[in-house]
C-alpha cells in the first residue's frame, strides 16, 4: 500500500508540473496585458514599461516560467500582479470558504444522493422511484447559476428565510455561517446528488438481482441486513468512483457558486485572476486545486479496499 501511495504522489507531482507548464504558456497566449489591467483606462507608454519591469513581465516567457518554478519548489508561489500580495497567503485565505462549502456540499450530496438511490431501488416502479428519478434527471439538467439565482429569489427575496450573499466563518458565528452556506451547498451539490442517486439506484438494482442476495434472503436474513450489509456494500464501488469524479466538479462549480452568492473563495479568485491576466495567481490556484483533487482521488482509491477486500494494490 505504501509503495502504491508513493507511486501516486510521484504521478501527481508530474501531473502538476505538466499542468503548470500548460497553464503558464496558455495564459501568455491569451490576448491582454496584465500591466494594462493594472493601469486602468489611459496608461502611457512609460507607465506600461515601468509596471512591466516591476512585475518582471519584460523578461522572456521561458525565463519567467523557470523563475516562478524555482520559487514554487521552495514553497513560494510568488506575488500577485493585481493584489500585490503573497499568493500562498491569498490562496489560503480564500481556500477556507471554498473548502467549507465544498465539504458540506459533498457530504450532503453523498448522504442524500445515496439515500435517494437506495430508496428508489427498493421502491422500484413506485411513485417514490418515479419522483426520485425525475428529480435526479432535473437536478442533472438544471445549470448551477440558474438554480442559484432562482434560490435567491425564492428563499431570500420571496420567503425571506436566508441571506442573499456573503460568507461568515463558522468560528465567528456558527448559526450565521450555516444560514449563509445552506443555499450555496445545496445548489453546488445538486447535480452531484442527482448523479449519485441515479448511480446508486442502478447499482443497487443490479446487485439485488444477484444470486447471493437471493440466497441471503432465502437464509431468512432480515431485509435491512440484506439491503445494507450485502447489497449496498457491493453496489457502492461504482458510487465511490463517482464520488471521486465529483470532487473536481465541486471545486469547478465553486467558480460559479461563489460569483452568484458573492463568496470570496478560491473559485472567485481564480476567475478574477484569469480576467485580469494575473498569471501568478492562476498558477497558484491551479496547483492548490490539483493537490486537493489528487489527494481526494487517492483517498477514494484507498477506500475501495475497505468496501471490497478483494481489491488490493500492489
Amino acid at each position, binding site marked *: 500500500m505504501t509503495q502504491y501511495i508513493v507511486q501516486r504522489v510521484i504521478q501527481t507531482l508530474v501531473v502538476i508540473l505538466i499542468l503548470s507548464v500548460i497553464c503558464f504558456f496558455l495564459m501568455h497566449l491569451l490576448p491582454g496585458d496584465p500591466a494594462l489591467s493594472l493601469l486602468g483606462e489611459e496608461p502611457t507608454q512609460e507607465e506600461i514599461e515601468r509596471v512591466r519591469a516591476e512585475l518582471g513581465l519584460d523578461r522572456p516567457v521561458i525565463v519567467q516560467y523557470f523563475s516562478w518554478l524555482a520559487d514554487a519548489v521552495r514553497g513560494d508561489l510568488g506575488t500577485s500582479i493585481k493584489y500585490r500580495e503573497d499568493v500562498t497567503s491569498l490562496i489560503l485565505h480564500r481556500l477556507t470558504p471554498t473548502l467549507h462549502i465544498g465539504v458540506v456540499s459533498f457530504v450532503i450530496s453523498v448522504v442524500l444522493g445515496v439515500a435517494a438511490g437506495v430508496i428508489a431501488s427498493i421502491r422500484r416502479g413506485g411513485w417514490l422511484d418515479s419522483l426520485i428519478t425525475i428529480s435526479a434527471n432535473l437536478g442533472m439538467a438544471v445549470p448551477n447559476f440558474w438554480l442559484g439565482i432562482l434560490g435567491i429569489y425564492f428563499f431570500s*427575496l420571496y420567503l425571506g428565510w436566508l441571506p442573499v450573499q456573503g460568507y461568515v466563518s463558522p468560528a465567528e458565528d456558527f448559526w450565521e455561517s450555516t444560514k449563509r452556506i445552506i443555499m450555496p451547498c445545496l445548489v453546488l451539490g445538486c447535480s452531484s446528488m442527482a448523479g449519485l442517486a441515479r448511480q446508486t439506484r442502478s447499482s443497487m438494482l443490479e446487485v439485488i438481482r444477484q444470486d447471493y442476495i437471493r440466497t441471503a434472503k432465502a437464509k431468512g436474513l432480515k431485509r435491512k441486513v440484506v439491503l445494507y450489509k450485502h447489497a449496498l456494500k457491493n453496489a457502492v464501488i461504482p458510487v465511490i468512483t463517482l464520488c471521486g469524479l465529483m470532487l473536481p466538479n465541486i471545486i469547478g462549480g465553486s467558480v460559479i457558486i461563489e460569483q452568484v452568492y458573492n463568496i470570496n473563495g478560491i473559485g472567485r479568485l481564480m476567475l478574477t485572476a484569469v480576467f485580469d491576466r494575473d498569471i501568478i495567481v492562476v498558477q497558484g490556484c491551479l496547483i492548490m486545486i490539483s493537490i486537493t483533487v489528487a489527494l481526494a482521488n487517492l483517498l477514494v482509491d484507498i477506500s475501495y479496499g475497505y468496501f471490497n477486500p478483494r481489491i488490493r494494490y500492489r
Partner: protein
Amino acid sequence: MKRNKGMQSRRWLLIVGALALLLVMAACNANGTKSNDGSSDVTDENENHEATNEKDQYGGVLKIGYSTAGIQALGLSSDIRLIEDMFVSSVALESLGRYEGTKMVPHLAEKWEADPASQTITYYLREGIKFHDGTDFNAEAVKWNLENFIEHRAELDDISEITVIDEYTLEVKLKTWNQRMLEEIPFYSISSPTAYQEMGRDAVLMHPVGTGPFKFVEMSHDEYVKFERFEDYWQEGRPYLDGIEFILFADSTTASAAMKAGEIDIYFNVPAIYAHELSQLENITVQTNETGLGALMTGLIYDSANPDSPFANPKVRRAITHAIDRDAIVDALQYGFSFATTQWGSKTSPTFNPDLDLEYDPEKARQLLADAGYPNGFKTNFVIGTDSTNIRFGEIIQAYLAEVGIEVELEMIDSGRHQELTVAAIGEPWDGIIIWSARGDYDVSFFMPRTFSPQGLTYAHNLQHYEDMQELYTLAKTALTEEEWIEFSRELQRLAFDEYAIATPLYISTMPTAIHKHVHDTGINSGHPTRFTPENIWIEK
C-alpha cells in the same frame, strides 16, 4: 401488517422531519435578514417619520454595495484611477474643492484666487484640520500631495512651481495659464504625507489616511472595505454614522437582490437594467447624475487612419452620425438611465454646440454615403465586448446601419483584447468600427485630446488627426475668459463631430445609484459621481 406499520411510522418521521426543518428555517427568518415584505415596513416608517431631532440622527453603520472587478488603490490620488475606488476612498480622503452640480466649490480650502495674468492660483486653506494619524493638514501637506501627483500622473503637468506662503496659504504657478487647473487641482484628494513616510507607498495604497469623516479600519480584497467614524473630524457634530462598510459584488444580479432584501442600504453605479428594476420598488429611490461629470460616454469610433478603410472618408463617418437614433437606444438598452448626446458632454453643458444638426436622419445618411462614393453601402466590422449588453448594443447598431446600406459583422472580444486594441501605447489597430468609451466631462479642451490628439492615450493610434483641432485645444485651454473658453470649445465640438466626425457619441451614463429611503442626505450624484457627503448621511431608525 407489522411491515406496513413500520412504513407508516417512517413516513410520519419524514413528515415530522420536514416540518422541523421548515420551523428551523422560519426561525432563521425571525432572527435574520429583511425580506421584501420587511422593506415595505421601512416605507411605513418613512411615512410616519416627520421630524427627527439631531440626536436621533447619530449611529448606525451604512452598507454600500457596488459591482467591481476589484480594488486597485484607495490611499493615493496619483494611483486612484477607477471611479469605484474614488467613490470608496472619498469617505476617508477629502480634497481642496468639491463639485456642487457642475461648479467646483471650496472644501478643505476656504477659498482660492486665480490670476491668469501672472499664471498663479493661490489657495487659502482651512485651519485646525487633522489627518487621521493626528498630524496637521496644512500648506506643506498639500504641496507634498501635488508634487507626488505630478511625479506619477500627467493631469497636473501644467504646474511649474508650488510655493508655501505660510502655514495655510499655498501658491501654485502654471507654465501657461490653463483654466482647467481651477477644477483639476481642487479635485484630487489629499493624503497624510506622514502616513506615507511611515507606512511606505505600497501600504498607503490600500490604507487611506486623510482628513475625511471616516477612518479606514480594514479591507479584504474583492470582499469589503470598512471605515469607522473619525472623532476629530473638522466639521462640528459630524459625521452622524458610526461607520461605513463597502461590500464588493462579483455579480450585479446578486447585488440587486441584496439591495431588495435590505442587506445593503445603497447600491452604487447600478447597471441600467437593475436600476430600472429597483426604481419600481416603493422603498428605494434611484439617484441619477445629469452633469456628465466623470460618467462613461459610449459611442462609436472608426479606423480612420487606415487609408483603405471606408472610414478614412469623413462623409462616411458623418453618415453614421445621422444613421443612429440615440434616443431609441437609450430607451431600449439603458432604460432611460443614460442621456443621449451627439457631442462630447451633456446637452445642458456650456460647451455643447447648439448650432450643430447631428440628429437622426437616415435619408441624410444615405445621401452622405452616396456622396462619399458608397451609394450601395459597404461591408464592415464592429468590434464589441462579449457581455450581453454589448451584444445587444452591437445588434442594434447593426440594424441601424443596415437601414442605410452598411452591412456590419460583429466581432466579439474580451476586455483584455479590447484594451490591447484601444490603448495607444500598445498601438495595435482595430478593423472597422469599435465601441468607444470616454469620460463624458464637458471640458473638451482637457478630455478630447486624450483621444483625438496624436498624443492621445486611447484610440489615437488609429485615427486621423487635424492640425486645426490641435491649435484649438491650446486656445481653449489657455482662454482667459469663460466666454472665450466656451467659444473655442464649441468650435472643437463642431470640428470633432460634424466636419471631421472623428467619432460618434451616443449616450452618457447617469451613474444611477439606488438608495433605500431610510438613508438620508447622501449627496450622491449631486455633483461629481465619485464624491458624496458621507459626513451628512444619517439612517432613520
